């Protein structure tokens, strides 16, 4: 078992990641695949937040001039989560716009139908 019971937040993040990944594998609808990728993103944010947490300490905003390391949690994962959110928003927008283009061309969101139509066109 190791530290599994103490690291329950990180374990939940990993299970959420696998749920998102199985969404990518098992669904044929493109929108559901994009939702799966966003679930994977959220799992990574949860993992990073758990990494930065230290019990009994507060957010890294200096109050009353207290500047000792013992007072605040790790500020670096917060910055990394911010980067992750921005990149995830950009990637989602890009994928959704490509999906809209595919839908306008083939009038379906099902990946199998799209590939069958592609074969019919001889691509």
């Amino acid at each position: 078992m190791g530290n599994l019971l103490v690291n329950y937040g990180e374990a939940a993040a990993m299970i959420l990641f696998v749920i998102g990944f199985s969404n990518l594998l098992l669904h044929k609808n493109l929108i559901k695949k994009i939702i799966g990728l966003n679930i994977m993103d959220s799992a990574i944010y949860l993992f990073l937040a758990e990494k930065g947490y230290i019990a009994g300490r507060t957010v890294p905003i200096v109050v009353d001039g207290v500047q000792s390391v013992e007072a605040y949690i790790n500020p670096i994962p917060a910055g990394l989560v911010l980067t992750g959110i921005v990149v995830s928003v950009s990637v989602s927008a890009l994928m959704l716009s490509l999906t809209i283009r595919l839908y306008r061309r083939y009038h379906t969101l099902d990946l199998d139908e799209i590939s069958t139509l592609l074969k019919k066109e001889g691509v």
Partner: protein
Amino acid sequence: MPGRGMPMSRLKPRSEYEKTGSFRFWRWLAGSRDPYVGEVEMKAQIPKEPRELTIRERMQERQELLTRVYDIENNKKIAFFHRIYVLAAVVFCLCFAGILVAMVSMLPPTGEADRPVNNEVPARYIESGLQETGAVNIVTGMILDYRAFDTFGESNVLFAATTTVLILLHEKKKKREDGTFEEIPSDRLLEPKQDAILQASATVLVPVIILFGIYVILNGHLSPGGGFSGGAIIGAGLILYLSAFGFEKTEKLFTEKTYKYVSFGALTTYCLAKSYSFFTGANHLESHIPLGTPGAILSSGLILVLNICVGMVVACTMYTFYVMFRKGDF
């Protein structure tokens, strides 16, 4: 036409009496006319007519396609592949989950201070961040001063994503044979015009939302928040304004040109400001930018300027995403 229960007056003639407020009040009380009927319903200006033929053709085509793709009964190969694929995917996901959870069980325990993540880097940020950057919020000081290059990259990623969405979804005007441009089939004609509830609540909420977004951006170095979250709030306010009042109102305020100039200006300001501090820092020169008193709104050197730049880029990006996905044109 006096209906049943219509109020009457003995003192005034009928046409004059119908203009007074008491007439409308008594009429409402009598229930002969509901003031909401025909006033608040969402109505499309041009009712959409379904074209029977194309729909039927399309349905038939789709049915043929479905039988070809999901012909599991006749095509044994597809059925076999489908079953094997689902089985393999489930087994793979379970193994993946097992490996990841086993890895988590070997990680150092959460919440303890002596983990390898908490090394000398965050200690340095916490201990001397306030003196070196002037920002009370250490995370803001970190992402906009120590790691400002990274944040500049993020803003550029947003800009690149918006540009790509513009390329992919922008509807070009087609030229007719006689030289005039064809009208884009916009959803402006299908927009609801009388949505009283949405418009009334937007009138109250939009100024508050945008003010709150500005507050979050300007206090980014003092409290939780900053350019990214504040910009997202302002973008949400603009989207609410657009949903309530339509493009006729927002195109006075925000067009493609606005997006171009604001994003370009904000990114250039960010780039120049950060180039200056990189240049002075790398050559060990004094930067001449006062850090101010910690906790004051005009403090922490360049961080306030950078936060405003990032906020403008994010607000424009959110609004442009919405407009592009909705209509394909500003």
